[in-house]
Each structure stands twice: as structure tokens, then as C-alpha cells.
């Protein structure tokens, strides 16, 4: 044998590698990692969607040109369009035809006909970067037009608030799952110490310090947490990818593999945190349990 030949064989782990009846614990850890991963991806997706929507809204202005006389529709809307083109040359300016503007009012009138001389406001949609509603309002006022500008601030604020709540829900769920992971590991460490009390007794007898024994459980819990995190978070990433690419889920904030790579980095970070939480729970529990047992003598 190696030892007899003077060559030291590899050190065996002092705690048994395969713990009987630990399959249920593995399943729990994998499910927790999966849920934690989904919660993180949900929060990240919500943030990303909110950002996208806000960007889209901030790039849009809608101008209503108020008319005193229905006959002035074309003249005033053209004047407004030219005024806006002067101040926003890079913007895409789209004037809604009069018939379509009238059609927008139809739902409020039911089957009734619109009066021929009703001055329907002209609607102009602007799309482009740096659309400042104040600048537009000043220019249109100077041109002698009566206008109402909607810069979508109200919708953007509502969206922003909704997105914040969704992100908070995702992160709150993530924190709760991590706390549950902590509790599971505390319980598992206590159960493990009870199951391996004979080994602990021998270690104490040969003079092992509490720190030495606790480190054995820390190592075991870290390996357990890391493997559970790898499996669970891989499943979460695959689930997220499938949901994003298949069916009509509105993208779930998945904006392609570029953003996916950043998500994977976040998942790796979460997996590391998950494994460290498992290890920390085991270390603190083992140290406290050993101290408690010593006092109980």
C-alpha cells in the first residue's frame, strides 16, 4: 500500500460523504435554489422591462392641436408639424389623418354621427431622442397655436411604480427563500450532528477543538449548498430561457443572449451566496451545538 511504501495516501473526509436519507435534503436545496433563481430572474426581468418601457415612453410626445374652426384643421396641423420639425429635426413626426382623429371619438358617440362642423383636434405623434415638451410648448405658443402636449409622464410614473413593486416582490421572495435555506441548513446540521454523534464523540476524545469539528460541517454544508445551487440555478436558467423563447409571455424581460450573459453572472453570484449561507448556517449551528453539549455535561 501507499502508506507502507512511505507515500502518504489521500486523506479521507472525517464525516461520511454519503449521508443516509439525505436525498430529501438535496431535493429541498435544489428546489430552493431553483425558486431563488426564478425570483432573481423575475426581479431582473421586471427591472429590464420597466427600463425598456420608460425608454420607449420618454422618446414619444403626442401633441393635440386645438381648433376653433373645423375648416382650419389642415392649416393648423401643418403649421404645428413644421414648427415641431424646426425644433426637433431628428424626430419622426406623424400627423394622424383627420378621418382617423374623428374615428378616435366614435366610441364615445355610439351610433350617432359627428357634426360636420365639429372642430376635431389634430393629433401629431413625435418619436425621437431628446423630445422636450417645454421647448415644444413654447414654440407652438409662439406660432399662435393652441395645443396640449402629452409627454406620457403619468404613464411612465405608473409604470415605474409598478416595476418597483414587481422588483420588490422578486427581491423579497428571494430574501425569504434564502432565509428558508438558512433554516433548512440549521436543521440539517443539527440532524447531521445527531446522526454523527459517535464520530463527534471520538473527535472530542482525541482532542479536536470545536473549531475543527465545526469546520467539518462547514465544508460538508458548503459542498451541499454549492451542488444544490448549481443544479437548481441551472434549472432556473433553463426554465427562464424556455418561458422567454416559447409562447406569448411578453418576453419576460429576456432581451436576447447578450442580456442573458449578465443574468448568468447574477445567477453565479446568487449560487455563491447560497453556498456561503449554507456553510455559515452549518458553522454557527455546529459551534453553538458543541458549546451547548459541553455545558450539558
Amino acid at each position, binding site marked *: *500500500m501507499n*502508506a*507502507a511504501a*512511505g*507515500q*502518504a*495516501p489521500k*486523506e*479521507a473526509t*472525517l464525516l*461520511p460523504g454519503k449521508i443516509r436519507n439525505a436525498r430529501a435534503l438535496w431535493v429541498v436545496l435544489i428546489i430552493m435554489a431553483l425558486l431563488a433563481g426564478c425570483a432573481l430572474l423575475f426581479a431582473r426581468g421586471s427591472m429590464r422591462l420597466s427600463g425598456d418601457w420608460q425608454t420607449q415612453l420618454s422618446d414619444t410626445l403626442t401633441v393635440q392641436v386645438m381648433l376653433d374652426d373645423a375648416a382650419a384643421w389642415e392649416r393648423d396641423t401643418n403649421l404645428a408639424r413644421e414648427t415641431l420639425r424646426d425644433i426637433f429635426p431628428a424626430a419622426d413626426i406623424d400627423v394622424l389623418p383627420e378621418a382617423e382623429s374623428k374615428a378616435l371619438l366614435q366610441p364615445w358617440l355610439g351610433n350617432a354621427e359627428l357634426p360636420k362642423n365639429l372642430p376635431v383636434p389634430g393629433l401629431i405623434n413625435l418619436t425621437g431622442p431628446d423630445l422636450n415638451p417645454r421647448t415644444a410648448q413654447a414654440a407652438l405658443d409662439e406660432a399662435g397655436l393652441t395645443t396640449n402636449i402629452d409627454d406620457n409622464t403619468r404613464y411612465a410614473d405608473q409604470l415605474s411604480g409598478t416595476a418597483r413593486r414587481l422588483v420588490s416582490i422578486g427581491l423579497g421572495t428571494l430574501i425569504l427563500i434564502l432565509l428558508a435555506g438558512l433554516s433548512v441548513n440549521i436543521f440539517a446540521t443539527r440532524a447531521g450532528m445527531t446522526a454523527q454523534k*459517535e*464520530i463527534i*464523540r*471520538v*473527535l*472530542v*476524545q*482525541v*482532542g*479536536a*477543538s*470545536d473549531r*475543527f469539528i465545526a469546520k467539518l460541517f462547514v465544508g460538508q454544508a458548503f459542498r451541499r449548498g454549492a451542488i444544490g445551487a448549481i443544479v437548481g440555478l441551472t434549472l432556473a436558467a433553463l426554465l427562464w430561457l424556455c418561458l422567454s423563447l416559447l409562447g406569448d409571455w411578453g418576453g419576460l424581460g429576456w432581451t436576447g443572449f447578450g442580456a442573458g450573459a449578465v443574468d448568468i453572472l447574477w445567477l453565479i453570484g446568487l449560487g455563491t451566496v447560497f453556498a456561503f449561507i449554507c456553510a455559515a448556517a452549518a458553522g454557527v449551528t455546529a459551534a453553538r451545538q458543541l458549546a451547548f453539549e*459541553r455545558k450539558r*455535561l
Partner: protein
Amino acid sequence: MRALTSSESVKGFKTTVPQQAQMSSLPDLVNFERVALRYGRGPEVITDATLDLPQGSFTFLTGPSGAGKSTLLKLCYLSLIPSRGLIRMFGRDSALLSNPERQAIKRRIGVVLQDFHLIEHLSVYENVALPLRVSGQARAAYNDDVVELLQWVGLGHRMQAFPPTLSGGEKQRCAIARAVIAKPDLLIADEPTGNVDPAIGRRLLRLFSEMNRMGTTILIATHDTHLIDELDARVLRIEDGRVYTGKPQ
């Protein structure tokens, strides 16, 4: 197991043999003063035990089953805390020891328990190396000592075997090797011959005797009077939780 001769010793182990005349001047390794122990609110299982184990001594602790031999040994290797009285280990009051000091003293005590307490998923080699491993020694530093000791106790060919595959005698020798590998100052054995046949029991006794000649203080609990008769050693007797000196009548 290969028989040991008095001139044999293991590399690195103590080679000085304390003489009987010198022994009386040596300090006590263990000193009990009116020690008592009760479990919970039950009756005292050890009552007013006063004893000492001088350095380099060989002592038998005997008494009927249930008299408190194992409990007294547990007090000696700091596995139990007395309900009252004073225990001095290596000159230190055990009640005043900090946790690291207690662990350091435990590393100076080798213990052989009646049911061996070997770790089943570790090989014989790993079990024997355990005290050195927990004390933080590198494997390369202790490998030769472990191999040599295992060969010395006749387990050289069973180093990679696991405890469930060992015979009672092999387990006993493995437990003893683990108890002595860290060169303890005090070796405590609880019924070390209880699970082995008389021939192996005599061999084990010779092993303890040899270790004692190399300077290790030995305390053996046994109710085997033949074992006691084979060696001219000090005898402590425990009856109804009280400790007396001398062989039972």
C-alpha cells in the same frame, strides 16, 4: 500479533523508563480529592473518591460491574465534570480549565474504550492517525510513525481495511494504536481485554507494560482478576461508588 520484547520500542516514542524509586518523587498526573458525581438528580454514583496517579505508574482499577469504573475513567479523561470535589489533571484544577486548555490536556491522554469507538468509514490507518490529524500535523510528517506503529501492533497488513471487517482483537489493537500514536502521557483503558480471548488479552497486557516501561502512565479498568495477577501493579478498587486501595478480598 508479534510478541514484543522488552528491548523493542517505536521510533520517536519515549525511551526513558522511570524507576520505582524515582517514581515516588514525580508529580501526580491525576489527583482526585473527595470527588463525587451524580447524573441529574439521581444518587451519587461516585462518592468522595480520593486517588492519585503518579507519573509513570501502572494502576488497575477493579470492582464489580456497575460499581462505577467506567464513570471514574470518564472523570479521568475529562469526559464528565464532577458534581463536587477537586480533580487535578497534570497539576491543573480541571474546573478552571478553559476549553482550549481542556482540549490540549485531552490530547495528552490516550483512551481505549470498551467498545473501541473506531470510525467505521475510515480505514485502520485513518483511525490511528486521527489524533495527529486533529492536532493539525501534516500527513507527510506523521505517515512514517503511523505505519511503523501499525506494524508494531501487528496491523501492518490491515492498514487499508475498515473497522467492520476487523476481528475483535484487531479492533482492539487499532483502538490501542490510536490511543498511543500521539505519545500520550496518560493511557486510560476500559476493560481492554473484555472482548478478546485470553491469549490476545495477555499480549495486550504485555503491550501496556511495554508502554509503561517507556514512561507512559497507565490506568486500566478491569474486573479480570487473572489479568491483575499477571502484573505486579498498583490496584484501586471501587465498590458502591467509593474508591479503596488494594485488591478485592
